[in-house]
């Protein structure tokens, strides 16, 4: 593929609006990194001399570690900065942080923030390439890319698949990025959950179908993506209890058989076993949850590599 057809942005803030032609090269590059990672001979020079800062305003050991590994496997100098949210809950403070980072002259900035749009705001103020590692309820593009890559490895393609995204879709940045990616790649997307977690307005996100009945939503799907149900959703009155949620919206054996025989079971982690997913389903042969974690590193290597090449020379 010619370079002109590749994603040419300096940042990766989200997948909304991206085309299949822009997404596929990330997946292809990630696939090659997956092989290299497994062979334990990753190229340690792709980001040699580059500085990667993981700037996390929200705790996330898994994602941060994944980016850290990805950066290190490509030879970058990786620095982790965890910032207490309470001290940066004002826009001015976030911009102060940007000024500090500019002074440090880092090349790649991986940002997680509890507020939607925070990485976008930073990206306008820093010299570095910004990767959104999850912002509020907005997007989590590398998670969607790793999900897509996992699906592609097992089912060969994303075109023509039916993917059910189940549970707390409304609050999920993972779901939003997946909706953009999957629909761009030619999959049909179903959003499944109670109306309090999957409001009717979700249908406006694109070519998606909304189901409030789990059985109907899972019937004949190729992929079941379950989402983590945050405990605070119960306190907020969105669902009555964990046991009720599992009874009506949990992915268990009884519901798994409604999907296609070899449907994949996915979860972005960390899982609430017995809440959104039954333990035996999470550990079943149809589950690709651990593989998602592995692909996460490869995808992040591909993203960091690609963005570092897009950087305008200083």
């Amino acid at each position, binding site marked *: 593929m010619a370079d002109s057809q590749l994603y040419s942005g300096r940042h990766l803030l989200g997948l909304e609006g991206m085309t299949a032609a822009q997404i596929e090269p990330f997946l292809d590059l990630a696939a090659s990194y997956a092989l290299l990672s497994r062979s334990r001979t990753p190229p340690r020079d792709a980001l040699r001399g580059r500085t990667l800062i993981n700037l996390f305003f929200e705790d996330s050991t898994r994602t941060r570690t994944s980016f850290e590994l990805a950066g290190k496997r490509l030879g970058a100098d990786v620095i982790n900065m965890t910032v207490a949210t309470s001290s940066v809950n004002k826009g001015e403070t976030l911009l102060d942080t940007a000024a500090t980072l500019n002074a440090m002259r880092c090349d790649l900035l991986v940002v997680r923030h509890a507020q939607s749009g925070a990485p976008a705001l930073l990206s306008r103020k820093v010299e570095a390439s910004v990767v959104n590692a999850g912002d509020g309820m907005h997007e989590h593009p590398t998670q969607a890319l790793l999900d897509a890559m996992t699906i592609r490895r097992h089912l060969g393609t994303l075109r023509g698949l039916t993917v059910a995204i189940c549970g707390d879709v409304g609050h999920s940045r993972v779901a939003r990025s997946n909706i953009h990616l999957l629909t761009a790649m030619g999959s049909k997307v179903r959003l499944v959950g109670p109306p*309090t977690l999957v409001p009717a307005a979700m249908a406006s996100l694109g070519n998606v179908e909304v189901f*409030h009945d789990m059985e109907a939503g899972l019937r004949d799907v190729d992929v079941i993506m379950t989402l983590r149900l945050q405990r605070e959703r119960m306190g907020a*009155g969105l669902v009555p209890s964990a046991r009720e949620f599992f009874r009506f919206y949990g992915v268990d054996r009884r519901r798994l058989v409604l999907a296609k025989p070899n449907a994949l079971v996915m979860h972005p982690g960390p899982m609430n076993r017995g809440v959104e997913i039954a333990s035996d389903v999470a550990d079943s042969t149809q589950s690709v949850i651990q593989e998602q974690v592995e692909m996460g590193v490869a995808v992040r290597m591909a993203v960091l590599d690609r963005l570092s090449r897009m950087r305008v020379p200083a």
Partner: protein
Amino acid sequence: MTATLFENVRLIDPSNERDSQSRLLVRDGVIAGVDLAGAEGRPEDAAIVDGQGAILCPGLIDMRVAIGEPGFEYRETIASCARAAAAGGVTTIAVLPNSKPAIDEPALVRLLRGRGEETGQVSILPYGALTKGCNGEEMAELGLLREAGAVAFTDGTQAIADTKRMRLLLSYAHGIGAMVVQHPEDPSLARGGCATGGALATQMGLPQIPAAAEAILIARDIRLAEMTGARLHFGHVSTAEGLALIRAAKGRGLPVTCDTAPPYFSLNEDEIRDFRTYAKLSPPLRAESDRLAVCAALSDGTIDAIASDHTPWDADDKRLPFAQASAGGTGLATLLGVTLERVHNGDVTLIQALRLLTQSPAALLGAPGGTLAVGSTADLCLFDPDASWVVEAGTLPGRAQNTPFDGRALRGKVLGTWKNGVRVFGETE
């Protein structure tokens, strides 16, 4: 095999638009035949009930009943409530969940259903609590309660005050296809009040609840029902303004329904003169113009059902200064008689009135019964629409006696009630 043949009766079955002199055969607790002719229509093994020209209709379905049990057995038990129901021709009652404990656990729903069956006199259809403990805060396990047999969800005599919470409750209920029943009264406007706002309450020096408290909540909730698509039902609607809002919502095709109770079409605020605490109800008795609006709404179909709003209280709960007395009145035994007043004065036809007491509540609750169709459970009510009697507190069936109709002469009396084909009220032939 047991069989009973009802002869010499006027069968009225709103679900089939039937109003005819016919016979009805019950076999093994099920309606086995209607309009039977000749010898085959009079099986030799059948016991005969001669209705002597009285009306036989489906057993009444009362969609709003409070029982003292669990928690307040001194007011009323399931057994005493079942006796009152049977005496009123009522064979199925939907029971409010704001007992102690509240009906917010699936096991309690099953328990109540089972206790109803044990009486042999009445089926109990429990409402599930809308929020845990009916405290208006945390959402109850609506799906699990529904699986256990809850027919719909409500917090009973307390409206959900918080608008956002109500929106979430409606939204979640919509997702499981359940109906929400709301007590239509803005809690903050009603707080501390005991009589409808106006000249009388002012003159009596009573804390007031403006009629607008009903309209404000109904308007809010109709808007929320529109947002969420949920099925919303308002219990015991009592004001002209509230009914106008519901009428308009129905006109727009929204899934909004309502019921009222006999006090609101038969009594007005004048009943509380002399500080008569039996007439202290929730919502309070309204102005005469509101009562007339309720009558009109019965006639034009705005009101979907008539419920007794049976609320038993102990004598000591009522023997207090008006503002301190408990609100609510019994209604099972007087439900049919007071409703028939509206037939006798021409507001509604007999078949309309019986539809509001049988077929409509059954449909709203998704419950069986409310019909004389062959194959249906033989829950039946035999009554004389012209027999006169006087309501006397102290002599009513059941434990609680706090009727707002004390001393009222009624025309229309239940002669017999059958549950699953077994006579549970009236003289055995």
